[in-house]
């Protein structure tokens, strides 16, 4: 049986948190899609609030303490990442951004990522596409086309209560996004790769020869 790992990062602050709820729903749906393809998935979920001090200390000192280092290692080595943030002041939360600021900016290269966000009203939904998506694109992650936004009202809307029949319900959007992520995770060999922190760039010459020999 094929095995994959899926990391979930939630920047929700309250307990219980709708951000975490969305993250869990996205993870559950992704795991189910992978199971359909015969893939067993290990999910590791992190609430950034639990690491808030460590993340800020890393920002100030330049290195991750052992606890945060272990978490970063698990997130960046996963076959897929689900990253969900509340929308604060028209963008991702500061804690969410700070986490992605302190990790090595090459460490998410090629990683399949599903982005999600929550807010009080649907009017913030574009933040996913003007804030989160460009950030992950900068990091050379592979962001799936469907991003999932959950406004407060989405949690009380089923198929029957749809205001506009042209808009997919939250469960339908989750299913669609999970399918997109699962397809990429199933193909990933990221978690089984041996990573060499001392790997030198291709063509590296310690004598700095120019032009290269």
């Amino acid at each position, binding site marked *: 049986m094929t095995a994959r790992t899926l990391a979930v990062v939630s920047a929700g602050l309250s307990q219980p948190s709708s951000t975490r709820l969305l993250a869990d729903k996205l993870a559950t749906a992704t795991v189910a899609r992978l199971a359909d393809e015969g893939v067993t998935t290990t999910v590791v979920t992190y609430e950034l609030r639990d690491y808030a001090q460590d993340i800020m*200390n890393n920002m100030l*000192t330049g290195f991750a*303490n*052992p606890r945060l280092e272990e978490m970063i290692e698990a997130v960046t080595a996963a076959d897929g990442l689900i990253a969900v943030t509340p929308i604060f002041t028209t963008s991702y939360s500061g804690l969410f951004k700070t986490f992605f600021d302190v990790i090595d900016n090459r460490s998410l290269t090629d990683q399949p990522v599903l982005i999600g966000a929550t807010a009080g009203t649907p009017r913030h939904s574009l933040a996913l596409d003007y804030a989160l998506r460009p950030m992950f694109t900068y990091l050379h992650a592979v962001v799936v086309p469907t991003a999932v936004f959950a406004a407060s009202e989405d949690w009380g809307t089923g198929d029957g209560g749809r205001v506009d029949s042209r808009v997919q319900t939250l469960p339908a959007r989750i299913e669609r996004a999970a399918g997109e992520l699962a397809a990429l995770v199933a193909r990933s060999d990221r978690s089984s790769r041996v990573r060499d922190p001392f790997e030198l760039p291709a063509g*590296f010459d*310690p*004598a*700095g020869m*120019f032009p290269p*020999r």
Partner: protein
Amino acid sequence: MQFGIFTVGDLTTDPTTGQTPTEHARIKAMLTIAQKVEEVGLDVFATGEHHNPPFVPSSPTTMLGYIAAKTERIILSTATTLITTSDPVKIAEDFAMLQHVADGRVDLTLGRGNTGPVYPWFGQDIRQGIPLALENYALLRRLWREDFVDWEGQFRTPLQGFQSTPRPLDGVPPFVWHGSIRSPEIAEQAAYYGDGFFSNHIFWPASHTAKMVKYYRNRFEHYGHGTAAQAMVGLGGQVFMRKNSQDAKRDFRPYFDNAPVYGNGPSMEEFTSQTPLTVGSPQEVIDRTLGFRDYVGDYQRQLWLMDHAGLPLKTVLEQLDLLGEEVVPVLRKEFAKNRPADVPDGPTHESLVLAAAQAPVAAASVGRDDLDTSAAIAPHRRATGAAFGLAGAGTNGA
């Protein structure tokens, strides 16, 4: 094994008094500290190089030249010399001159510098930091080892028939350490040439330093300079001592909490548990420092950062007294125990002269043969076009 201190030369307000020294007072304090290093029986004084406030040491060889005249025994070094933004020709000249002035008591640690604007101020690009460090050092080595140098590279204006003067003392260039915290490229460079590797692990976890040093040692052996255990390793460290551990913590805490590098971040207790910073009694410093050997192996040089974060001169001198009287004598004895006979001591001019005399062929090419003779290098070099020459001329005028 060599023990000493290094200074970054920061001009920082003392958080306990609100007083900020003048540049003049700080520079004079650094000179006093250097002389104290000799007085208390340590081996090395190293100064940083910076080109922006709040740091004062922009001209290391000027400062070290004065200290050379005021001391008789200690090695004068740097932490670090900016190999990226300084012209390697000027580095070759300055340090060869200092060698003569100081009768050989000179070595240097090369670093890239991490202050973004310094690169453009000196006509360089921080994104080229590693290529600059590699190429500039390749030229520096040749300037010290070959009487006449023909050179063309990517960054500096070409040289035809250039001779760097004065020639190194006794024909032996100063020993070079390569300093890096996190770049394997620099550890590789140090290993390639058989030079020293200096890991300033004061702000980084021990596990990280252990991996970097191990990598350097393995590559040193790979390039045929000796066994991994014979590679030349230097470590940074940072300590604050009082006779009584609790007094040390009480007295250092305001400096820790307000220090430019880690202030307002983790608590002093967290930071000391995660990095080599030790705040406590001399015995605690001894125990912690001896522990470094457990993860980097027997090494050659231990330097401590002593005079930063606004600590007043009087306190720094007290720290040096404690180091000289209570800490270093014990460390010398303990580090000597079980140290394999074939692990070299810290490099000195005398040891390099001796090595050159005993093994003239090997000494003439401390790196690889194909690097150290212009005849071997010439075929690899092609004209790189006028654009590079012009860029080099423009950037190295300073």
